[in-house]
């Protein structure tokens, strides 16, 4: 069941973004914030529909960031499209770097294990540990 509020972004968040762009002495009526909430939801729906249409025509199941950028451009929201393309590009780069960093740190961990007690490859030592624990579960079984 989708409640009414689920179709809108939280008014506090919307109000905050509005306030951020306005001068200090500006005030925003509650109704204006509510109207903005509805407009944003319509914006999301509108762009998403267009993007999902493209996915359907191209026989793709998953809607991605590129589809959104494309939809923004197609719907005449070129300014948004350009900014979002750059944002998406940076985001993907950021994600790529994160993955590379994770790989690097897990490689370091593996090195530590091999220099450990067993002198075995990391995978097999882990398997050994698990195997022992599963069999006996007692502390004597752990010692190998």
């Amino acid at each position, binding site marked *: 069941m989708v409640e009414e509020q689920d179709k809108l972004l939280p008014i506090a*968040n919307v109000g905050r973004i509005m306030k951020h762009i306005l001068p200090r002495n500006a005030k925003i009526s509650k109704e204006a914030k509510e*109207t903005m909430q509805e407009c944003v939801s*319509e914006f999301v729906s509108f762009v998403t529909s267009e993007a999902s249409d493209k996915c359907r025509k191209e026989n793709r199941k*998953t*809607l*991605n960031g590129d589809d959104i950028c494309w939809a923004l451009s197609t719907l005449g929201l070129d300014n948004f499209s350009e900014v979002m393309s750059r944002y998406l590009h940076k*985001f993907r780069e950021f994600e790529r770097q994160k993955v590379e960093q994770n790989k690097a740190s897990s490689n370091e961990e593996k090195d530590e294990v091999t220099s450990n007690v067993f002198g075995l490859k990391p995978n097999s030592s882990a398997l050994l540990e698990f195997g022992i624990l599963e069999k006996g579960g007692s502390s004597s079984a752990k010692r190998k």
Partner: protein
Amino acid sequence: MRHPGAYSGLLAGGLSGKTGPHSLPLARIKKIMKNSSDEVKMISGEAPIVFSKACELFIEELTKRAWMVTLKAKRRTIHKEDVAFAVINTDIFDFLVNLVTENSSKSEEPQPVMKA
């Protein structure tokens, strides 16, 4: 659901550059996306993140324009009619015209406001 990471540094500026990962809840954005049409099946993790930024830009743009209307009327409080007016006068927001006119069909011109 992917977790918002420290993207706040990306394209610094705008609210998301200052208040932590995202200024809008990704799960809610995803719900709205799913509601938009039956055709929407799967949504990549990055899509709500892209929309979070896009919505921020959208709100900023529409707010700026509404404020222009408010200023012209020599007021300091943005009313919903100002938002409606901004929508009607901006080509790229044509898709919102029905939404704002059905909302403001009850009231007519922006009324002068008496402070409480």
